[in-house]
């Protein structure tokens, strides 16, 4: 049918290496999400603080993250900061880039979620003698994270997909990087990337399923 001989065996022989790459991909995505959520909570705190400088800082972060390409953000974390004499490894640059992006999008999701939580909730906490930080931590935050749960799982999928951009700053240990290197050795471009695509697909589906299972355990109310 095609004037091309598929050589799946040759490509499949490399599967163990690619799966190792997939682990690195997951590692970056999970790290970038964990740090990203923490930073997004901090950014949300900055926005709520009523302090001008902090609000400006948070808004600038969020708007740059949302209005420029993720690839641009990774370039900035790698080539951009090099102008200041800072040289990050590809892994670090990629992690910083994705984390920056995650935090920005998540902070915006959190802001939307906060609108759905009544002011009287934190007021009730304050009248029980809680400090503003305690009221946020124990009353507002858990509700906010629940409302933003679905957008957070979407962002996790994005983080997985974004790891593929690391190749542009010299990353070669993640799934895409490994595949690219194998391609340079074997030239089985279609077969190798098709396998990589299947692995990515499976990872994103597993994340979606896992998130749904986790939700039933986390949110019983």
């Amino acid at each position, binding site marked *: 049918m095609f004037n091309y001989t598929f050589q799946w065996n040759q490509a499949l022989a490399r599967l163990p290496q690619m799966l190792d790459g997939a682990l690195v991909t997951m590692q970056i995505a999970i790290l970038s999400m964990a740090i990203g959520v923490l930073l997004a909570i901090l950014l949300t705190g900055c926005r709520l603080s009523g302090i001008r400088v902090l609000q400006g800082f948070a808004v600038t972060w969020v708007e740059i993250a949302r209005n420029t390409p993720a690839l641009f953000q990774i370039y900035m974390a790698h080539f951009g900061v090099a102008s200041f004499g800072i040289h990050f490894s590809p892994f670090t640059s990629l992690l910083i880039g994705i984390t920056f992006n995650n935090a920005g999008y998540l902070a915006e999701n959190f802001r939307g979620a906060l609108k759905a939580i009544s002011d009287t909730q934190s*007021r*009730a906490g304050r009248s029980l003698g809680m400090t503003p930080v305690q009221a946020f931590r124990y009353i507002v935050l858990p509700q906010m994270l629940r409302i933003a749960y679905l957008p957070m799982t979407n962002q996790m999928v994005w983080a997985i997909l974004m790891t593929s951009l690391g190749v542009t700053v010299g990353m070669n240990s993640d799934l895409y990087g490994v595949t690219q290197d194998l391609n340079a050795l074997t030239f089985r471009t279609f077969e190798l990337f098709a396998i990589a695509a299947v692995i990515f697909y499976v990872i994103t589906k597993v994340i979606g399923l896992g998130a749904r299972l986790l939700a039933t355990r986390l949110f019983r109310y």
Partner: protein
Amino acid sequence: MIKIENVRKSFGQLEVLKGIDLTVEKGEVLTIIGGSGSGKSTLLTCINGLEPIDAGRITVDGTVVHDKSTDLNKLRRKLGIVFQQFNAFPHLTVLENVMLAPRKVLKQSRAEAEAMAIKQLGHVGLGDKVDVYPSRLSGGQQQRMAIARALAMSPGYMLFDEVTSALDPQLVGEVLDTLRLLASEGMTMICVTHEMKFAREVSDRVAFFHKGVMAEIAPPEKLFGAPEDPELQKFLAATH
């Protein structure tokens, strides 16, 4: 003792409290009645420092509420307040709702807080609902949970801000019964309410607020039986 001296408070152009003087002794039950916009609810949120005041002074057991050096979070432990909206924390079970502040604010141990929570939930008649989430409770039950939540902090005073106003009529009774119980136990209470029958029954004194002024204050028999202020007479005529 809660001492309110010449307290003034405005929201923008609108002056809602025009010089209020009032003293509530330990063990006293004071109810405040009056039309909407009379400033009665605002006074409660000023007492626990949720709202700043423009002039005058409020002292609770000798502590000046709006003094800069006052630790409001500490002061509020003494002043339990329950609002018209139930403000249940939806992500916590009934038990956790009541335990949260004792654990985080009073730094009680889990066992200590749990024992107190179970006691107070039993007190308000929710002993069988401890592990339920608030979304499964009726409005009256949620409001009683809010009362237990405030009581768990072992406050010296309880402030009730129209706690039955958001309830369906058939649920008002169970909440008022809880308040009656507290009053009979000697809790110092200030209740802002529209329930005249309740005010007449439980109060040591009743205050009538009108347009930011405390127009009359007297024991219930006197205030309901022989009102002097013409606005109060009109108000009572309209509510009966």
